[in-house]
């Protein structure tokens, strides 16, 4: 599902508002050089379209720097950036009105309640007092904080704190959310809940989202588009499906006699790569399935598993990631840490 299909629920008094049209972010030859160090961003040119976009790269690749330049918190050394049609150098206030930002690091005062804090942040987004109160209650409910919101933030778990951080980004009704490592410090369950929440906001709320993460699995799970950067340079920008469907492989597992099967498949002209308990075969269409079926039937082996797999995003960061080249790592699953 992509945000293009998202239908925004309209509340009372709210006129129809479709998903954002046009280009959400446009960076042009963006360069950021910190004093006496290497370039954090190096001639980065990229266009981000509406929907949920993953901004992926190792730690230090320049993700946070890019987000801060887009918000006008940092000045680029050179190059230009536009967010929702506004120039980040001259129109920062307008961008910040339309954008919600969830920083990577802890940013919550421990001695106020979530309600008070998010209400205050709503006021700081330009909402009048009553609207700030209502939207703070709405935002906290959307992120799944109910009775707890009347408790001091200092008593919260990491997962709840991450939700408050998301709620304060949401409170000003932004057109764009910039989320910097939203799953930072969460356990696997909390991670999945946060990802579901982000995906839901992108799909149901009609808000475009840029999620920065060093975890490829997360990006793959929730994003429509992907922007991969490395050392401040653009590595790749594309839709998730086109990135991950570059080539597909078939995993075949049999009870025993894996080598026998490999030999049989080789006889039928299929190259295989042995993996822990199975064989990987380059998928070339229906005939590949037929050949594998026939080979197994001829050998009379019990088939345990046959599964189609995509190449994973992490290959983007491998030199040997040439489409078609079959690497055992191609089927590693789950979130892989590139850092």
């Amino acid at each position, binding site marked *: 599902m992509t945000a293009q299909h998202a239908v925004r629920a309209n509340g009372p008094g*709210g006129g129809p508002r479709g998903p954002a049209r046009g280009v959400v972010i446009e960076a042009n030859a963006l360069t950021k050089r910190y004093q006496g160090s290497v370039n954090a961003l190096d001639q980065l040119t990229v266009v981000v379209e509406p929907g949920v976009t993953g901004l992926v790269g190792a730690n230090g690749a320049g993700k946070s720097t890019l987000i801060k330049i887009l918000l006008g918190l940092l000045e680029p050394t050179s190059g230009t950036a536009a967010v929702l049609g506004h120039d980040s150098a001259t129109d920062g*206030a307008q961008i910040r009105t339309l954008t919600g*930002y969830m920083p990577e690091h802890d940013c919550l005062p421990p001695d106020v309640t979530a309600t008070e804090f998010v209400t205050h942040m709503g006021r700081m987004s330009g909402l009048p007092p009553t609207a700030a109160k209502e939207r703070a209650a709405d935002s906290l409910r959307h992120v799944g904080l109910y009775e707890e919101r009347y408790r001091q933030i200092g008593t919260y778990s990491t997962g709840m704190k991450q939700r408050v951080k998301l709620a304060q980004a949401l409170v000003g009704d932004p057109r764009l959310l910039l989320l910097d490592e939203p799953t930072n410090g969460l356990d696997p369950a909390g991670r999945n809940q946060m990802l579901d929440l982000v995906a839901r906001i992108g799909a149901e709320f009609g808000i475009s989202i840029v999620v920065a993460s060093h975890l490829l699995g997360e990006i793959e799970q929730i994003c429509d588009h992907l922007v991969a950067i490395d050392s401040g340079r653009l590595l790749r920008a594309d839709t998730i499906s086109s990135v991950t469907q570059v080539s597909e492989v078939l995993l075949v597992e049999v009870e025993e006699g894996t080598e026998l099967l490999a030999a049989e498949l080789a006889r039928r002209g299929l190259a295989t790569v042995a993996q822990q308990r199975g064989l990987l075969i380059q998928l070339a269409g229906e005939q590949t399935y037929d050949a594998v079926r026939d080979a197994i039937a001829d050998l009379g082996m019990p088939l345990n598993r046959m599964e189609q797999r995509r190449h994973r995003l992490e290959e983007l960061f491998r030199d040997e990631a040439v489409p078609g080249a079959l690497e055992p790592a191609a089927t590693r699953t789950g979130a892989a840490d590139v850092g």
Partner: protein
Amino acid sequence: MSASAAAEGAAMSPTANGNGNGTGVIHDIGYRSYEGQRLGRGAIGRALTWHSLRSAFGLRRGVKAKIIPVITFVILCAPAVVNAAAVALSGNHVRQISYDTYVPSLRIVVMLVFLAAQAPELVSRDLRSHTLPLYFARPIRRIDYPVAKLTAFFLACLIMLEIPLLLLYLGTVAQVHGGSAVWTETRALIPGLLLGAAWALVLASLGLLVASFSGKRAFATGGVAVFFFLTFTLASLLTHIGLNSFGHAALGAPSALARLAGLISPFTVLDGLRQWLGGTTVGQIPNPGSLGPAYGLAFLVFLLIGIGGLILRYRKVGVA
């Protein structure tokens, strides 16, 4: 919590939703976008100022946050109350306390405690919890944050310094009779109020500047206390030496050291400024006489350091 928030909380709680199973998760109410008014930079700045002013007195916070502001405020008001009683009971109805100095030593000590305790409340908390990036990611500009904090703390100091003066005034005029007597009191009050504003400006800006260098409350409080106390002690000591070692009694005029020592400390600079501008009540330092303009200049320099320093501080403060 306001009544409306409480009502809403009840309406939105899972059990009140009619699910009845107690685990009901309400995700399906849909997202409501906001089409209403959006306030500009000025209004957001005012909201931040108001929020900060309340926190300077611990309002909407726990009891602990209110202890020091309330106690210091009550102590500063006490002389005015005593004056009101004295004026009422004495036969000639004469005011006991000067408007332009109030009770100098009490005022200095109590304001020092207030500054050390409350300046960190305004600036160190946001540094400590790294909340600043959230402010700077919103429509306001960088400079709006220190300006709002400074305005709020200036107003807080003004309340601390001038409510007692107004009580002093009211306690006195309640007992005097005739329009001219009231007018005399009012004319005496006005310079006191203006000097109070000068105090509030210098103390608030310097207090916030020192506090803004540490996110750790203890350090910020210590820094503010040490800065104001040390400079004041040093100025008092040098004034004392200047008066006693250079025989002011014989010459009839204090030595240059005695007249210049006050330039070290904000409190004595404010006192020198007062005397230069015509204040006659005996204060912390001897009358600077011809060196009066130096106190006027020192006042401006302290103000410039305080306000300029605070703005520069928040230009530099890291969000990267």
